[in-house]
């Protein structure tokens, strides 16, 4: 009677463990699927956002660009030793209008905001890929490690690929050019 009870308890614990491992694999698969959709979601956000941002920033920049062009025209004339007072007064009157409509010239902050948005959106895409990679790695590790591999084999849980990356190729080798530290030219 006692032995029977012990076997029963052991069996119940075993079944409970198999169920929990099985559930880990199934829920992991569902989460990985959702994380792949999240990547798509972020890419779509990026595709919607960037062109709109670009055109609105461009619109803003043309405002100030005209004035800069006029000023550089004037500078060219001066450097050639010619009278540039007409060009300067043209530029100044344009500048006056811009300054009156925007007390501060904002191109600087507008471009900075654009750069922040660009970094932010690529971060979002990167992090959504990170989640997918992490989840698939957890799943694959659990699939091959003892003892959960028994359950994985029993129910035929296959290895998942995660972010598909070529396993051979240039990204795994370093060429002579890449050994030098890069110089930034502006």
């Amino acid at each position, binding site marked *: 009677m006692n032995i029977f009870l012990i076997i029963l308890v052991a069996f119940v614990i075993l079944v409970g463990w198999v169920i929990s491992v099985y559930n880990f694999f199934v829920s992991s698969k569902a*989460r990985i699927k959702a*994380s792949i959709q*999240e990547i798509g979601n*972020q890419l779509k956000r990026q595709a919607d956002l960037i062109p709109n941002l670009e055109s609105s920033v461009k619109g803003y920049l043309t405002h100030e660009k005209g004035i800069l062009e006029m000023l550089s025209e004037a500078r060219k004339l001066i450097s050639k030793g010619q009278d540039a007072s007409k060009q300067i007064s043209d530029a100044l009157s344009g500048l006056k209008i811009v300054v009156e409509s925007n007390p501060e010239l904002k191109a600087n902050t507008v471009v900075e905001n654009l750069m*922040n948005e660009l*970094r*932010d959106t690529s*971060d*979002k895409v*990167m*992090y*959504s890929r*990170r*989640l997918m990679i*992490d*989840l698939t790695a957890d799943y694959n590790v659990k699939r091959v490690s003892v003892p959960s591999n028994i359950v994985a084999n029993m129910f035929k849980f296959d290895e998942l690929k995660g972010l598909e990356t070529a396993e051979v190729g240039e990204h795994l080798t370093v060429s002579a050019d890449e050994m030098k530290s890069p110089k930034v030219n502006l």
Partner: protein
Amino acid sequence: MQNIYEVQQCNKIKSSLITALFFVFSVIAIYFMSQAFGYYNGYEVGGVGYVGIALVFSGISTFISYYYSDKIVLTISGARLANSKEHKLFASVAENLCIGAGLPKPKLYVIEDTAPNAFATGRDPDHAVICVTTGLLEKLNRTELEGVIAHELSHVKNYDIRLMSIVSVMVGLIALLGDWFFRARFFGGGRSRDNNNDNQLGAIIMVVGIIFAILSPIIATLIQLAISRRREFMADAGSVQITRQPAGLMSALAKISADHEPLEAANKATAHLYIANPFKDKAGGTIGWFASLFNTHPPITERISILQKMA
């Protein structure tokens, strides 16, 4: 050289060992104190009644502070909801890291204080709160801020707030029992001493009970602090797992420790929640081994050197 997964594995094992040690110690301490209570009051069954009452007291107070931890802490520290326009960087960094960690987006709060610091609270990831000071937002750049927020998100992901609540129920229980033990000793009525043999055994148990009553609150607190420090290391490793940029958290920690202004909004009850000790050590990092036992946080230099190994 350990990779990040080995570090996390090692942290997990150490953390569960300390936690197990803590619970074993609690059970032993409670057992002896209740036995001594039993002998003192004249019934042999043991003072289960006292343990029960102490558990109820300690349990209720901690359960309330656990369940409403977010609201209580936020009220104490005078935090206000972060505004997505005013704190745009904070909001977008938190959102991005949540995407990476696979967590729901927590509520974001800001404390008006120039001392840079941050903490996380809330009973589970669905009720998580992350709070930063305005000083932190001003002094850190984006990469550093990512490191700090990822550290806080790891606390949320590891259910550290839940663990520390359970631990403080036990510490509270032991402290209450020890306290009552002495009150009963000095003010309660003694049992009639008629049986000499039983009296000897009773005396031994009384002595053991007194020793436990004196020492166990201190020992329990020390183990609690050791758990707290271990969880900080775990959160540091978790932060690196999310951002993969140890340099960000390293320079953030360096900046936070370089700032010697104490955080006014923090008090002893909330100190263990912050990313770095909000009171700042006056000795400038040269605290001794004994004093470091009483710290809620491991020394920043040690945290940075561990992060360096992961880089």
